[in-house]
């Protein structure tokens, strides 16, 4: 099949296990984000794909061919490093032409390719500039252009935007996504920024402690997190512990609610996104629990409200226009819509 297949990959450094055995299939042309906190093994996984480290176990296949033992310089993958790793002794053009020079391309071909790539990353006419005279965003684009010079089968980026300020980072995320769509190149980006992953990815791979927690499209990861780690790591959520009291009924300290897909019995955690909670003045409706407002902050675009529901903290987000006249300490009723409650596996 076409695409990248990681089959039972594991990696240990001495006695330290960086990656537990994992398998993952990345279809041709998809944009994948490896997302997780630092030390979760996402960079290790990317380095295994690039061939900079060898896996302790498992095979890596690309379009059906086993590339596990192929050295990095024969894989023809483009990689952008966190440090960018631009060669300080070469100009912008020479940096971009480096992979072509290594392969013995003619000077004319090199020059034409440099011009094409600089146009691609929207930095025309800076080929003669030394790398040290570039701004952060320009260095970023030059590193991307250099990695794309080989027309690689796989485009790998290790926290490529972490050195940029917030505004520029947002702009580059969109630009990178559009570039990837235009080129149709299979891309893997390592990031710890969940917004970045949500912006760019077709497939988000959430990792923690050397394991894949969930691999799914961004909206699915957001709306249907499989466990507490994913629910908590992606965005803000209400993680509620409760006891299953009857089939489909979950007992919370503040009251009983109905939740679809509950296990047969025992303690269970659910996740409800803050924007799915509804505020009511009266109780009595389905899935409503009594709560007490503890804190309100108006962020302009949204209003965030924190509530106490019999010892459990709830976070609720709503548009400012919907905010009723309330003060901290007021008693209200919060609806946890059954459709928005996601049962988490332990």
């Amino acid at each position, binding site marked *: 099949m076409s695409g990248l297949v990681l089959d039972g990959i594991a990696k240990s450094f001495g006695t330290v296990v960086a990656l537990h055995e994992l398998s993952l299939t990345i279809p041709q042309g998809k944009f994948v984000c490896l997302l997780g906190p630092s030390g979760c093994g996402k960079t290790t996984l990317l380095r295994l794909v690039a061939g900079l480290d060898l896996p302790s176990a498992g095979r890596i296949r690309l379009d059906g061919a086993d590339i596990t033992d192929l050295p990095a*310089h024969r894989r023809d993958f483009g990689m952008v490093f966190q440090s960018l790793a631009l060669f300080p002794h070469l100009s912008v053009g020479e940096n971009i032409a480096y992979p072509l020079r290594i392969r013995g391309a003619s000077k004319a071909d090199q020059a034409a390719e440099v011009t094409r790539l600089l146009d691609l990353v929207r930095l025309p006419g800076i080929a003669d500039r030394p790398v040290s005279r570039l701004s952060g965003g320009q260095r970023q684009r030059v590193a991307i252009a250099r990695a794309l010079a080989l027309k690689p089968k796989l485009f790998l980026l290790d926290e490529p935007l972490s050195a940029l300020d917030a505004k520029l980072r947002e702009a580059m995320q969109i630009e990178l996504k559009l570039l990837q769509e235009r080129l149709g190149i299979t891309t893997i980006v390592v990031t710890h920024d969940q917004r970045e992953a949500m912006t760019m990815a077709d497939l988000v791979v959430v990792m923690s402690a050397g394991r894949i927690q969930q691999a799914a499209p961004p909206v699915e990861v957001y709306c249907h997190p499989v466990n507490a780690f994913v629910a908590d790591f992606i965005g803000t959520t209400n993680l509620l512990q409760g006891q299953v009291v009857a089939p489909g009924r979950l007992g919370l300290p503040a009251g009983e609610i109905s939740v679809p897909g509950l296990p047969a019995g025992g303690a269970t955690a659910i996740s409800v996104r803050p924007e799915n909670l509804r505020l009511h003045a009266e109780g009595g409706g389905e899935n409503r629990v009594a709560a007490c407002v503890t804190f309100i902050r108006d962020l302009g675009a949204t209003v965030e409200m924190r509530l106490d529901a019999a010892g459990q903290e709830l976070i609720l987000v709503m548009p400012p226009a919907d905010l009723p006249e309330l003060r901290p300490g007021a008693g209200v009723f919060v609806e946890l819509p059954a459709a928005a409650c996601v049962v988490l596996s332990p």
Partner: protein
Amino acid sequence: MIRTAPRRLVDYAPIAWPALMLVLFFVLPFGLMLAVSFFRRVPGGFYQPDFVLANYARFLTAFFGNVLGFSLGLALLVAVIAVALAFPFTYLLSRMRRRQQVPWLVFLLAVLSLSEVIIGFSWSTLLSRTAGVTNLLVLIGLMDQPVSLSPGFGAVLTGMTYQAFPYAVLVLYPSLSRLDPTLTEAARTLGASPLRSFFTVVVPALRNAILATVIMVFVFALGSYLLPQLLGRPQQWTLSVLITDQAIYQSNMPFAAAMAVFLVLVSLALVVLSTLLGQKEGRT
């Protein structure tokens, strides 16, 4: 940190101590030597204060020109060979784990602490006919009979390179260990084999450090006078040997001083020249 230019005399106080040391141990002796180089030699005696250029006029002989040329050429050759050997060695050393690096660095420091006399006699034994390495070659059948490799140019070159090698490694070590390891990884993902990434990225990225090390080792080798005597024939004697010979054995202090001044000026000029070249290179 305050970054204003010093205005009053007191602002210069912190550099008083180093300045004093520099004057006491460098400017004064050098000035003394400079003065002596213009003194007149008293045949059979020592020298008397005067201002004659006769000591410098002797430089114009072919003999002196040959010795000077040989000294500079030998020092340059030693510097180039030592750095050419030390650079890949230091690169591999700096890629090792910290814990494995320490014994190597201690070993290199130990070699550096060896006296020139010990190095000289060790090499003359190793290169001798009776106990030298050629006996090993005879033993494994590569040679018919052992030969003496010392004294000779090869022996001088070997001894001096051996002495300069740890020095070159220690000068190169800081810049190589600071080199971003992702540079070579990037080169590898861009299609360069490890050997090619070494020559197309590591060497050119550190060309200024390499040049600086060549100059340092060159100046270090230029001062060598024991090894050429121990391992070389009179043809391989350097300017330093000649200076010692004149100063100690011929009692011709003014001529020795003139040669020493000349040697200092030549090495100074070369260092300045190389620095200018390095700066020009760094700017483009």
